[in-house]
C-alpha cells in the first residue's frame, strides 16, 4: 500500500481497493446490460430472417437513414475517448485535462442524445409500421436512455473534478465512466451494424397470416 494513498472516508480502506471492487462491479453491470442488448439483437435478426406476414419492411420500403446511427456511434466513441484522455491526464496530476475531457465528453453525449431524439422524431415510419420499424425504434429509444444516463455520469465527473473530488490519487470514478462509455458505444454499434447490414429480409416466401380486422 502506498504511504500517500488516500483512504476511503467511509470504510477506511485504501481507495485503490475500493476502486478495484468498483471496477469489477461495473464489469458485471456491463455483462448484464449486454445480455439485455443481446435481446434486441436477437429480436432484430430473428424478425428480419422470418419476415412474418411479409411485414418486416416498413411501408414503401422507407428504411431509416443510416448515417445518424453511425454519427451517434462516433459521438459516443469520442465521448469515451475524451473521458479516458481526461482520466489519464488526471492520474498524472493534470486537473485541466480532466476538466476538459469530462466536459467534452458530456457535451458530446448531450449532442448524441439530441441527435438520437432528432432521429427518432424523423424516422420515415411509426413504431407500428412493421417489425423493422419496431426494433429500430427500440434500438434508438434504448440508446437514448443509455446516453442520457451516461451524460449524467460524465457531467458528474466534471462537477466532481471541479469540487476537487477527482484527484490524481483518487481518479478511479473517471476511469469507470470511461469504461462504461466504451460499452455505450458498443450498444450503439450493435444498432448501427444491424440496421446497416440487415435491411431487406432474406425470406421472400414468408407465411401470410392475413390482416386481422375488427368485425
Amino acid at each position: 500500500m502506498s504511504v500517500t494513498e488516500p483512504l476511503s472516508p467511509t470504510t477506511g480502506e485504501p481507495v485503490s481497493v475500493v476502486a478495484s471492487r468498483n471496477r469489477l462491479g461495473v464489469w458485471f453491470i456491463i455483462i448484464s446490460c449486454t445480455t439485455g442488448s443481446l435481446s434486441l439483437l436477437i429480436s432484430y435478426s430473428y424478425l428480419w430472417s422470418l419476415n412474418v406476414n411479409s411485414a418486416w419492411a416498413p411501408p414503401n420500403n422507407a428504411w431509416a437513414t443510416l448515417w445518424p446511427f453511425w454519427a451517434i456511434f462516433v459521438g459516443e466513441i469520442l465521448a469515451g475517448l475524451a473521458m479516458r484522455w481526461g482520466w489519464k491526464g488526471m492520474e498524472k496530476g493534470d486537473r485541466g485535462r480532466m476538466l476538459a475531457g469530462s466536459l467534452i465528453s458530456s457535451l458530446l453525449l448531450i449532442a448524441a442524445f439530441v441527435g438520437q431524439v432528432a432521429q427518432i422524431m424523423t424516422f420515415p415510419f411509426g413504431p407500428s409500421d412493421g417489425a423493422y420499424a419496431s426494433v429500430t425504434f427500440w434500438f434508438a429509444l434504448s440508446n437514448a436512455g443509455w446516453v442520457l444516463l451516461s451524460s449524467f455520469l460524465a457531467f458528474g465527473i466534471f462537477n466532481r473534478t471541479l469540487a476537487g473530488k477527482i484527484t490524481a490519487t483518487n481518479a478511479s470514478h473517471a476511469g469507470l465512466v470511461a469504461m462504461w462509455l466504451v460499452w455505450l458505444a458498443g450498444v450503439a454499434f450493435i444498432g448501427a451494424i444491424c440496421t446497416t447490414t440487415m435491411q431487406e429480409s432474406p425470406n421472400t416466401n414468408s407465411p401470410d397470416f392475413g390482416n386481422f380486422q375488427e368485425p
Partner: protein
Amino acid sequence: MTTATVTVTIHEAPDVIQPRQHGKPGGLLRYCNFVTALILGIVLAALAYWITGMFTTGEALNANFVPIGINVQITAMYVGWVVGFMIGIGAFVGPIRWFLGRDLTHADAEYLAGRGQGRMKFWKYTTDHKIVGIQYLIVSMALLGFGGLLAMLIRTELGVTWAELFNPNFYNSIIGTHGIVMIIAMIVVVSGPLGNFIVPIMVGARDMAFPRLNALSIWLLVAAIPPLASNLALGGLRDGWTVYQPLADQAPVGMIGYQITIITFGFSTAIASVNLMTTIVKMRAKGMTWSRVPIFVYGIFASSLMGLIWFPMYQYSQWFALSDRVINTSFYVPAQGGSVWLYENLFWLLGHPEVYVIVLPGVAALLELMVVFLRKPLFSYKFAVAGIFGIVGLSAVVWVHHMYMTGWAPSSNYPFMLSTEMISIPISFLVLVMLGTMWRARPWTRLPMMAVYAVVWNKVIGGITGVFLSDVPVDQYMHGSMFVVAHFHYMLMGAGLFSAMAAIAYWFPKMTGRYLDNRWGSIGFWVAFGGFQLTFLSMFAAGLQGMPRRVLQFDSLFNVSNWISTIGAYIIGIGMLIFLAAVINSWRSGEIAPANPYGAKTLEAQVPTPVPPENFAVLPVITSDPYGYGSPDPYELEDEARRAALEGGEPAKVGAS
C-alpha cells in the same frame, strides 16, 4: 475453518481525512422512510394517471385492437408508483450527492448503516447487509404467504368439484398471480436473506461490496410487488405466470402490472447479483482461496451469475410486450411482422435457468449445513463445485424443451432433448455429494439435517420426472398436463422451498440470536412435507390420467385425485403455519443461542451473536478449508482396525471406532 490472528489494520474514522459534513449525518435520508415512500409513490401514481388521462383518448386502438389510452394511463400510474416510492425511500439521494460532489462521511455511512436507530432502521434505506438480510427475510416470507394463500384458493376451487367457487376469470388470475409471486419469492428466499446476512460474514467481509446498492435492491423489490398484486383488481392475470403471447396482448390492463413488476424486479435482481458476486470475488478474507470457499458461497455465486446473465432477457421480453401495448410496436404481432415465438424464446432463455437460480442456493445451503450435523467433511468438494458450474453452463442450452409443442423449429427438439437430459448429470453430482457425505455418518438429528433427507427424496422424484419430461415423445403426451405441474413443484417447492426452510432454521440463531424451536419447527416441517407428498403425488396421477393444467372445469374422472391433492394442500398449509408460528415464537422468546450453536467451522459461526456492526473486530486470515471435521475419519480408522484384526486373525469389534 481455521483462522489466524490479525494481519490487517482497521482504519477507524478519526484516522481518515473526512469530507465536509453537510448538515446532520444522513442528510436527506433522515427524512426518508417507508411511510414517505408510500405517500410519494401513491401521489406520483395518481398524478401520472391523471396527467396522462388529459392527453390520451380511450378510443384509439393499437395493432392488437387494444385501447391505447387506458394502457398509457395505467403504465404511467405504475411507473409513477415505482419512481415515487424510490424517491420517497431515498434511493436517488446517493446519485445526486455523488453528482454534486457531496461524498459520504464516516458519520453519514454510520447513519445509513442504521446505527442507533432502533427498529426504525428496518423501515429505512439502510445499508448494513445484516439489516438488508432481515428485510429480505420478511419480504420473502410475506411473498410466500401471499402466494401460499393463492395456492389454497386454487386447491379449494379444484377440490370443490361439485360447484364453481370462483368464476373462470378470477380462477385463472389467481393461478397466474400465484405462479409469478412464488417464482419471485423463491428467487429471493435464500439469496436475499442468507446471501445478504450470511455470505459477507462467511467470506470474511465487513459488509457487501456496494452497501447502497444493497439497499436499492431490496427496496426495488418492495416497489415491484404492489403492481403485481394490484392486477387482481384490474382484470387479472389470466394467462399463467408465463403470460404467453398473444394472450398477454389480449389481456386486461392488469397485465401491465405484471410487466412493470418484472422490469422493476429485473433491476433489483441485477443489482443484487452484481453486489453478491463482487463481494465474493473481491472481499474474501486473506487465505480464502477458491478451494477454501464454503460451498454455500459457490451456490449463491452461481445463482447470481445466472440471474445476472439471463434475467435481462426476461426483462426485455416484458419491455417489448409493454411497448406493443403502449407505443404500438409489433414485436409479437404476426400481422405486422412480429412473432409470438420471439416472446417464448426470450422468456425461456431466463425461464429455465431461473429454476436453477432458485434451487442452487438452497441445495448449496444443505451441503453447507449437513457437514456440520454429520461432523464429516463434504464428500468430494470439487465434485460439488463442478456440479454447480455444470448446471450453470448447461442451463444456457436447455430452454427449448419448454417449446417442443409450440411448433417452433421442430428439428431443434432433439438436440435440446439431449442437453436437457445431460443437465441431470451435474444435478446428480450434487445428490451424490449429499449421499456420499451421509455415507456411514451419524447424524445429529436437528431440523436442518432432517430436511436434507426430505429434500433428497423430493429432488430425486422431481429429477426423475424431469428426465421423462425432457424426452420429446413423453412431453408430447404430458405437455400442459398436471404431471408437469407436479414435476416443477417437486423441484421448486420440494427442493427449493424445503431447502430454504432448512437453511433459515440453520442460520436462524445467527440472524436472531435465538434457536429456532426445533420441536415445533420440525412438526411444521414434517406436516408440510407429508402434505406435499399427498398433494403432488396425487397430482402426478391426475396428470397421467390426462388432466390439463390451468382449468377450472374438468371431468369427474379426475375428482378423486383432486380431492386428495386439496386435502394434501391444506395439510401443507397447516404445516407452514406451524412453522411460521415456530419462527415467530422463537424470534420473540426462543432459547438464547450461543455464537456457534452447532459447532460449525465457517467464519459466520466464529463471530459473536448478535453480529457486531463491522462483523469482525479484526479481519480474519484463513489457513484451512471449512470442512475439517472428524479428521482423521473415524470410519477409516475403524476399517484399518478391522483390516489389522483380520490380518492378525482376530475377530473385528463391530461398532468400534
